[in-house]
């Protein structure tokens, strides 16, 4: 009992407590900023509006919770992608490009390879997406490792290359010319719901959430428990020390980008391997889930568990934004408000410093290890 009490009291000062509190205060700050925007654009309905944003996820009960989770699954995975790369010292801005090629690979397999029976079809489609994303991650990895091309530059440019190539690929191979978008995947290629549709009826929930959970667990284990994660992090923290220790830092950069790319590719499969009418369109737009992944990783402080909660939070806020349309807010303004909340929330790393200060006044007088 005493131990538990100590644990609760000590929570704000423990490492995970510090992370939680900083993320939480970042969210509060983001919501406050969103509220100010609402006061500016529509003062009379601002209070009602902020209420809707904060409770929207529960608005229609389990159905809207289902929608929250549908939105969350891919950005949890792209958040993992960005967070994983970040833990290993790389800034993966290319999640959206990797997601796009993953999506195309998934759709291509999902539409064309109808010879695959039953469950095998969606599994192969998902694997194809993972592979495509991994290849799209390996390219900047190789450029960084062997030619010292900065990964931010390489991944940004590859985002556009992916976008144009995929639109071309859709037009050439899986084109629905009537609707000017990709063809719908075969029912066997849609990721099954694993019974989630019973828990969250009337939502377009898929098993993507399960895949996201699995990805979180795998990445957590790799980073925390394995020698592979140990050497990846060593390269990320200090490339020179890793080199000194005989770790092949060049190949580790490539591995790290391959995994980051594979995750984003998986996110592409999670978004598009569904029967609910989502397709790749032929308009030239970078898919937002990739960029949301950056914000998710920042809010979750790049840890797998943090990313999981951050992704669910973002999905939740987005559903709240959807219901905000009932009030007299312009659609664009809603996007601005939601984006502000999300991106201000992503500042949690900054808040970490303050959390430490506030809760450490006692602790600080006790100083460091020297």
């Amino acid at each position, binding site marked *: 009992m005493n131990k538990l009490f100590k644990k609760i009291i000590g929570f704000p000062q423990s490492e995970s407590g510090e992370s939680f509190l900083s993320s939480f205060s970042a969210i509060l700050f983001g919501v406050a900023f969103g509220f100010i925007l609402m006061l500016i654009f529509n003062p009379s309905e601002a209070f009602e509006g902020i209420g809707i944003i904060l409770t929207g996820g529960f608005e229609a009960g389990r159905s809207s919770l289902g929608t929250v989770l549908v939105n969350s699954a891919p950005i949890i995975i792209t958040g993992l992608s960005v967070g994983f790369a970040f833990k290993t010292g790389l800034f993966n801005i290319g999640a959206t490009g990797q997601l796009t090629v993953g999506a195309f690979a998934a759709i291509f397999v999902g539409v064309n390879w109808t010879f695959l029976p039953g469950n095998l079809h969606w599994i192969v489609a998902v694997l194809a997406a993972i592979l495509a994303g991994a290849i799209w991650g390996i390219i900047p990895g190789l450029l960084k490792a062997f030619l010292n091309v900065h990964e931010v530059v390489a991944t940004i440019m590859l985002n556009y290359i992916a976008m144009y190539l995929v639109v071309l690929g859709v037009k050439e191979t899986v084109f629905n010319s009537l609707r000017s978008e990709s063809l719908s995947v075969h029912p066997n290629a849609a990721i099954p719901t694993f019974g989630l549709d019973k828990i969250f009826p009337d939502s377009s929930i898929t098993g993507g959430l399960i895949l996201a959970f699995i990805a979180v667990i795998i990445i957590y284990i790799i980073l925390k428990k394995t020698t592979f994660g140990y050497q990846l992090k*060593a390269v990320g923290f200090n490339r020179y020390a890793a080199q000194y220790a005989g770790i*092949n830092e060049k190949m580790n950069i490539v591995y790290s980008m391959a995994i980051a790319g594979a995750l984003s590719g998986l996110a592409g499969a999670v978004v598009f391997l569904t029967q609910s009418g989502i397709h790749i369109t032929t308009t030239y737009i970078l898919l937002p889930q990739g960029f949301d992944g950056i914000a998710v990783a920042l809010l979750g402080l790049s840890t797998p568990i943090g990313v999981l909660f951050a992704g669910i939070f973002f999905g939740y806020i987005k559903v709240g934004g959807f219901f905000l349309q009932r009030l007299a807010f312009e659609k664009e303004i809603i996007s601005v408000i939601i984006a502000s909340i999300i991106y201000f929330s992503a500042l949690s790393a900054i808040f970490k410093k303050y959390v430490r200060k506030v809760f450490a006044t006692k602790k600080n007088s006790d*100083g460091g290890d020297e």
Partner: protein
Amino acid sequence: MEYVIEMLNITKDFPGIRANDNVTLQLKKGEIHALLGENGAGKSTLMSILFGLYQPTSGTIKVRGEEVVVRNPNDANEMQIGMVHQHFKLVHNFTVAENIILGKEDTNRGFLNMDDAIKKITALSERYNFNIDANALISDISVGMQQRVEILKMLYRDAEIMIFDEPTAVLTPQEISELMKIMKHLTEEGKSIILITHKLKEIKAVSNRCSVLRKGKYIGTVDVGKTSIEQMAEMMVGRKVLFEVEKGASKIGESILSVKNLNMTNKVGKEVLRDVSFEVKAGEILCIAGIEGNGQTQLIEAITGLNSHFSGNVFIREDEITHKSIRNKTLTGIGHIPEDRHKHGLVLDYNLGENMILQSYFDNEFQNYGFLDFEAISKHTNDLIERFDIRIGRGERTSARSMSGGNQQKAIVAREFDRNPDLMIAVQPTRGLDVGAIEYIHKQLVRLRDENKAVLLVSLELDEVLSVSDRILVMYEGELVANVYPKDVTENDLGLYMSGSKRGAV
């Protein structure tokens, strides 16, 4: 007697540890006052209190006789207290003048008043014979010059009380004697200096008085002129210290490392290694002596594989390892205590335990099927902490970043010795360490040699070169210019070889 600073009965408690226990430090005007103590003795804590980074648990601080509370470093600045940190705080792509005015820029309607600043800096530089060009880029000047910039920074801010934290740790012997001249000059001009160091010789050379701390406790203040180095060392360590390295005659065995015709040019096309050939034999401590920057770093990089852009051959016993991977070399039996412990030696964001398995995490001892065996790592680390006397607060979970420099070095030494290599390459292994730790590391090197292993030591300290090594090679401008035995040479001879004014047979 007038004291400019008095820290009276300072006690500072951290949970579980009393970092300063009733410490008193009184600095007279115009004196150089050494603050002596081993790593973790509480010197840094005491100075942090003077600088307002920590508040004392009890005790008082008086500046020029008046009791004061130093809440933060800005308060300290206003009291004209300045500090030269061990690791300089300089912007490398700024000029000397830009660095000096940084934080105290004079402006004229929003524009920098650079001309006046440069005039003032030049005047200060001339007055103290700093011989410094205010317009030079920091990245273009030597470490010794960079330190002068730090001193100029204090002078520019009219500091009267100057704290030097381990100022000679990064300097060559010549630069050290220059610095000592400067410090004496400063006190002649009425400045007062606190010198934090563990180099007893330097204390003897420049200080007037010396206060000693040991494990947080105040041991006493002595008049340096009337106290011998041995007495001060005993005060610091709490027991008698051996300055002479005890070692028997060496039993030279087979050749362990042989290096043949190494040549290297750097990025701008300058020859940094010129036809370097030598052997290190089992049972021998071979020392590469030389002034910093004469190719020692590049030589070690070539042997260890950190740099592969060179020609020539490297052999361990009969096996050529010239272009083998670093991992391969490590496993062949090369231990390496690197020159830069922060850049190469440690992953500062890893904890101590994780750092202790840096080259062996893949070993079956520490992993099962790719999963790290944390229990084994913890056991291994605690064993090393014990055996190598690493002093830290939180065991293997202590983050490497939070450890003091001396303990970081001890951790690296522990890791490399524990791997029990046939060839130990130790690059300035005692840089910045206190006498107790230096004695310890020297003993370990000798023990390794007595176990019939080969030791290649790179050192800038002539004392160390002469007392530890069995044979000395001197490097000058990328070439070996002398091959001598310590009993046949004096410090003076070595100095002549090192400065290129004399050449011997190699």
